[in-house]
């Protein structure tokens, strides 16, 4: 089963400050462990919200809201995608991450196609599959 780990933003990440060498070193070591254990599928950091945007959907209307957005701790500053054998294993891995200072890191299980059940009709499955195949070749 796959999990997404969501790392919240901070005033520093929103200000575009890069982590210090020490923190980068600790994170690199942690990532190396994840990779060498065959657990990590992906993981990236995100630019501050000042470089992003939100789009509000209302009927046919689309409103673009430029960043930055408020409430840094509710914003995502980075993520991982892991493959683990159980929720407990994902929790055990996350407990080893080099975070501190009261930060709360969120762990979420990723939906697989069968989780959608009958709502995902054979036609929709096929259409999705074709799109994914094309996307994988990009």
């Amino acid at each position, binding site marked *: 089963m796959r999990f997404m780990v969501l790392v919240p933003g901070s005033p520093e990440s929103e200000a575009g400050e890069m982590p210090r060498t020490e923190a980068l070193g600790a994170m690199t070591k942690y990532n190396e462990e994840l990779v*060498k254990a065959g657990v990590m599928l992906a993981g990236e950091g995100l630019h501050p919200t000042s470089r992003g945007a939100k789009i509000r959907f209302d009927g046919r209307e689309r409103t673009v809201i430029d960043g930055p957005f408020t409430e840094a701790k509710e914003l995502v500053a980075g993520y991982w995608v892991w493959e683990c054998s159980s929720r*407990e294993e994902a929790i055990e891995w996350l407990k080893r991450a080099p975070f501190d200072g009261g930060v709360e890191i969120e762990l979420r299980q990723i939906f697989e196609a069968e989780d959608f059940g009958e709502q995902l009709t054979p036609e929709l499955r096929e259409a999705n599959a074709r799109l994914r*195949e094309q*996307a*994988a070749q990009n």
Partner: protein
Amino acid sequence: MSPSATHRAIDAVWRIESARLIAGLARIVRDVAVAEDLAQDALVAALEQWPVSGIPDTPGAWLMATAKRRGIDALRRRVTLERKRELIGRELEILQRLDQPDLAAQVEDVQDEVLRLIFMTCHPVLSVEARVALTLRLLGGLSTPEIARAFLVSEGTVAQRIVRAKRTLAEARVPFEAPARDELTERVSVVLEVIYLVFNEGYAASAGEHWVRPALCADALRLGRILAALLPREPEVHGLLALMELQASRLRARVGRTGSRCCWPIRTARAGTICSCSVAWPGCGGPRSSTARWDHTRCRPRSPPATRGLGASRQPTGRGSWRSTTGWRRSPAPQWWSSTARWR
């Protein structure tokens, strides 16, 4: 935490730590069977103590310290009982190594040992069945009942295979070492054969309630990823990983309620393409990277039309895909392929 929750957490810790623990201990005691016994003793101690004391902050170091303590106790007893001079000499040496205080370093710096352990559990002196059982047990962190369930054989059979495999390794005096450069390719090939066999058993399982057993495929993928991280310069490892990722991407389709075979989770399809592109450099022509090369043609606009979009990713079974690929390469059917007979 409830007792069952603690046990699930201990299972998770074991899955993460067991390979490194056994590999680290094997480096010290120079005997995989003894190393596994000590690791199991530590697991039993954890199962007894952690539900009461809680899970320690560094469970890996705790398990290593406990295993070493058990090893020291057992050796001291034997040294007292058996007064044979040469035995004492050898065992005192191990005692000293076990007694070294640098626990944290020994737990953390064991990646090379994990690689040695892989080469040992996939050693050519062992039968194919023994390699599979021992690899899943020592590197995959699977218990004997779990392996037995996965392969639809009795627990006794698996236990026997593991016991015999350890005996064979001891009798053949297989050293706890990575192979020399000149035999590396050949030995890597044996390891890949074991991993693909596990994958294929999960993927193409013809017996049992389920057509595919995804857990076994996930175990093989994990072993493949571990190997790719430990041997990043071996194109054949990436080739096999790419093949497994592509085939795994169709797993869901095969077990889907509608019976549709077209469902391709994007991540594995993409991972397969990425892996295959990373190995498609000149001079690598092994059977596994040939699959990857085939896949690579899908990324290139000038590939011959006959090869584009055909082959592994659209074939209904893993076996067919491999043959179609090697056929395209005009290379003879790879030997290791024909040797990957069904496990049972």
